[in-house]
């Protein structure tokens, strides 16, 4: 086994240990749970732009881990929707657990330390939704290796309410051989979800509000 493979395997184990430590089960993790986890490790979370201050949002950054910002570890995270926000916090948690003794801040460049960054991605995906549970859930849906379709991914996400994004689920389905490589779309997941489950409540409410506004 190569050094990289061993490292990523270690990240998977670490993710499982952390889930057990915080008594996390299932495929969904909330912002509240993450606040508790970060509190346990004494990591402060700041969102950018800071509330009340007029600042431009990040262009490309999602999160940065500072091992020692004014005497304490800190994570700066972009104001994001739930799924990327949760994934970013999981990613930065790995840096706290594994990379805090290295000098400087993390996630600033993608190539800066590829193995550490990919390791953080592996940890984050596994921490949110372990691959073994993913396999079990697909098996319960009678999905076998090579037969997983985009529709199956949408159903899986709907049934498990996982915090992992469609893109991450699709990547995992292909990586684990449940879907043939390159068979799953890169985008259009929300549209497909709507085709299967209908218009989501928030969207219907938005549409009705806009309609009411136009009528008055």
């Amino acid at each position, binding site marked *: 086994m190569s050094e990289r493979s061993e490292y990523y395997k270690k990240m998977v184990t670490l993710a499982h240990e952390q889930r057990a430590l915080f008594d996390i089960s299932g495929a969904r993790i909330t912002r509240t749970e993450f606040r508790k986890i970060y509190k346990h490790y004494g990591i402060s979370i700041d969102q950018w732009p800071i509330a009340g*201050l007029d600042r431009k949002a990040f262009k490309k*950054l999602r999160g940065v881990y*500072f091992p*020692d910002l*004014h005497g304490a570890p800190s994570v*700066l995270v972009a104001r994001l929707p739930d799924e990327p926000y949760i994934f970013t916090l999981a990613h930065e948690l790995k840096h706290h657990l594994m990379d805090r003794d290295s000098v400087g801040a993390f996630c600033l460049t993608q*190539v800066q330390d590829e193995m550490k960054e990919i390791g953080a991605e592996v940890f984050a995906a596994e921490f949110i939704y372990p691959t073994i549970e993913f396999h079990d859930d697909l098996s319960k849906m009678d999905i076998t290796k090579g037969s997983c379709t985009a529709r199956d991914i949408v159903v899986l996400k709907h049934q498990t309410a996982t915090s992992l994004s469609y893109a991450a689920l699709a990547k995992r389905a292909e990586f684990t051989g449940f879907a043939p490589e390159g068979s799953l779309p890169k985008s259009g997941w929300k549209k497909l979800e709507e085709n299967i489950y209908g218009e989501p409540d928030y969207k219907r409410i938005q549409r009705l509000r806009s309609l009411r506004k136009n009528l008055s």
Partner: protein
Amino acid sequence: MDVSTYVGERIKEFRTSYNGGKGLSQEELATKLGIATNTVSRWEKAVYKPKLKDIDDLAKFFGKPISSFFPEENTPAPLAGLMRAAQGLHQDDIEALTQFAQIKSAQNQLRKK
């Protein structure tokens, strides 16, 4: 000198040297910032400690970085390391990180008594 006194003196210094040395009265500054007239006086005398939002507004008004309101020895230490690591990052994000480090430093100093 404590941080509040230092901040107060800096506000006074920026106010009196504003507009090429012509200066600005406390009332005029208060009007520009949309705050009560006596607040500026209380900041300058370190009776009130300005909030982060106030420092931010003052920094924007005077065209100064937030860090210029605080003692130099307490300017953000992680910034140097951060900038070393930030090669290849989008310029806007580097600016955002610089601003964050300054704001975080200001927050920490404002919390001090």
